[in-house]
């Protein structure tokens, strides 16, 4: 990953760190890197160096790796900013403090170079910013539930049950009608009058009037 290549801040490092291959490793000391970090946050050079030195002074002197030291210094700064709402007695507004701090941190730190040692000093500067709009912290409001409305029913004629019911009714009627017509046809043939009459009667009884199952119609037809 490429390193952030901001201009190196003015001021001298209080640490001596080993140099490595300039193609591979950032030769800057941790103090220089963190000074640039603060400069990118909008803190002016002198204050940025002061902050870097303050954070550096809190580290274990035995830790000499500049990359590791940089990480530790930035972690320490993050801890400081995370704890800011509690320190300032604004824990209830922690999100808002974090948001306002994120937007105005450079300016606040410039106004209060002692902020790292004495974070309480920021309280007076933060308070008006917290009350002031615009801000982007989403309000914490009582939640309501929006329930799905019932879909509502289709009219009977558009429901599947209607058609399956109708189908159940139509099948026997259709079958008996078919049988009746067949019977009528046979009746037209000489010598088959009796069979035709029986078929017609059985068709009407089983399918059309009594509403018997299709099996009865089939049986009756088979009987022919």
């Amino acid at each position, binding site marked *: *990953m*490429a*390193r*952030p290549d901001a201009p190196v801040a003015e001021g001298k490092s209080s640490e001596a760190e080993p140099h490595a291959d300039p193609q591979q*490793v*950032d030769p800057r000391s941790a103090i220089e*890197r*963190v000074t640039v*970090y*603060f400069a*990118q*946050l*909008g803190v002016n050079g002198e204050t940025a160096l002061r902050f870097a030195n303050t954070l550096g002074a809190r580290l274990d002197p035995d830790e000499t790796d*500049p*990359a*590791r030291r*940089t*990480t530790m210094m*930035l*972690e320490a700064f*993050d801890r400081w*900013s995370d704890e800011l709402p509690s320190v300032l007695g604004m824990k209830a507004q922690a*999100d*808002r403090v*974090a*948001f306002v*701090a*994120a*937007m105005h*941190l*450079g300016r606040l730190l410039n106004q209060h170079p002692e902020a790292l040692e004495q974070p309480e000093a920021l309280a007076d500067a933060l308070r008006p910013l917290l009350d*002031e*709009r*615009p*801000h*982007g*912290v*989403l*309000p*914490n*409001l*009582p*939640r*309501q*539930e*929006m*329930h*799905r*409305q*019932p*879909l*509502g*029913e*289709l*009219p009977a004629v*558009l429901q599947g049950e209607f058609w399956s019911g109708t189908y159940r009714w139509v099948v026997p009627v259709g079958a008996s009608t078919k049988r009746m017509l067949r019977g009528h046809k046979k009746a037209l043939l000489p010598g088959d009058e009796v069979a035709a009459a029986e078929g017609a009667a059985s068709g009407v009884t089983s399918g059309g009037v009594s509403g018997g199952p299709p099996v009865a119609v089939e049986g009756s037809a088979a009987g022919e």
Partner: protein
Amino acid sequence: MLRTSSGALFSRFSLLLATVASTYLAAYAFGHVVFGDDGKDVNPITVLLWLLFTVLFLWVAQGFWTATIGLLQMLRRSPNAVFKVKVETSDWMPPEDLPRTAVLMPIYNEDSVRVFAGVEAIIRSIEARGYTPAFDHYILSDTTDPAVWLEEETQLAAILDQFADEGLDVNIYYRRRHKNKARKSGNIEDWCERFGSAYTFMLTLDADSVMDGGTIVEMVHRAAAQDDIGILQVPPQPVNRNSFFARCQQYAASVYGEVFNVGFGHWTHLDGNYYGHNALIRVQPFIDHCGLPLLPGKAPLGGEILSHDFVEAALIRKAGYKVTIAFDLDGSYEECPTTLVDYAIRDQRWCQGNMQHIRLVFTRGYKWMSRIHLGMGVMSYLASPLWLAFMLLGLMAVVVGGEVNYDPFAPFGPFLIGVTLFTVVMLMLLVPKFYAVCLVLQRPDVMRAHGGELQAVLGAIIEVGISILIAPLMMVYHTTFVINTLLGRSVKWNAQQRDEAAVGWDDAARNHWKHTVGGLVAAGLIAWLAPSLFLWALPVLIGLIVSIPVSVLLSSVSVGNWLRTKRLLMIPEEHDKPKVLRLHQTALRRTQAVADAVADEHPMDRVVRDPAFNRFHLATLASNHEPFESTVNVAAALEQAQEAGLPNLERAEQIALLSNPHALRRLHHTAWAQ
């Protein structure tokens, strides 16, 4: 109990009577054409043809009579007055007494330069009216592209900075959902559940919406004055586009939209409709009654309702609240697609959404007027396959009839009645446009705003010509969309293309070669099988055959601009740009400058390396309070990001890291330590 006004009831009755009567007469006449005077040609094809004609004529007739009602209403009111621009119709109350209103801008992978320019223009326009404290502004992001997400945050930080520097007292909130459940309707629903309790009204916008502050304040006053208004819709006017096609749409909406909106608004009265944006909604009834039902079955016809607006209007209406169209208000703007292809893509989404409404048209419990709105939404897409089927059946009727007739004046049936019917249908389509042009010419200031007397007429002629030319293409597109939807092929809801990129010949050929080939084949078949129909079919065939050059021509911004220099297709917003659109233009320059200032660096590199932006992103994330769930192995993704860089990860991994404060801090520290 809400009561429809006697005027609206009379209009509804008149509309119904006129539509049914004219359809009856046309169907009767068409029966003579297809069945013959003695009914000798009755067969399944001609019966189907007749049925299709009747349905389609009904559809055309309702549009015609709606416009006629609009015309009569406009003439009745004040023929010489500018009909619109009626803000502050009553005394406005002081801002502190105005009900709290949230202005909601739901976005989904949109161009953040344009989105935030719209937000800024609306805020400044409200500020100009002195009503800033009454409104809070929410940008509701459903963005899934992590780079766009970070661009949105960049613009948010910039606009907050800008207003803080100016001392402008306004709340601008940004909320991003990790999962865009139920798309736009889910986005609004989520807002209602989390923040709705603090507001009486919400003004819903689209990503390309701009609304005048005066219009917004007037809307709130109107809704506050009547407790039973559930939704107050101001029809949006498309603006800001320059391509030939977009300028045609803008002109059509500006000239013809008024007469249709007035007619529609009059007969719908308190049973109006909601178009999904540029509308004021009463929050609590919306929460209580407008949770969208789930449709049975699978997508595309089942599942989540996609086109939520019509259904929400139906639900709030069912709950006893009014849905009103404020057709007398202007200052409501949107942007339209600039090319035929973009237009078709948008229609594809809308088509699938509207086809889902078929089930709801017949569902018990909805008001009849809501069913009509839902049915009209379905019919606006279904009409295309019906027209196509009508033409194909007409061809079949001739072919099956076996009359190889080379006389174009006697394809089938009595010629005179056929020609008369054709003329009647064309007139019913064109006369409302004629009304609208007359109404423009009647008002000198409106006429000047449309380019002048001659230009207003020429503009309408150009628009009608283009409409006729692209109608067959749209018919084919819509038919494809309807068939795809019915076959169960879902549409991906991508972000809408909102910039003006002209279509090149390659793209046009890729998109329209099928239409051209189809048109040529159809022309050959008709010439061979039914030569008597060839001339009748020619307008449709030409539209398809020339679709490639037409698509290129219509997408051209230079042609659009050239027409503007001739004051053709001019709309009032181009003649004299309203203040809110001027504010939008200025805001666009600012938001573009913000984007340009960070353009050298990938947004994901920036969030990793830039301490200020990293902190801002984390603060925005913390304020959102939405738990993030993902199956991504964050530790592995973090390791990979440290080696290869965040921009080179998969999208899911990028989102997982950007949503995890600890991982992002680690990445940030590593970037500074290396």
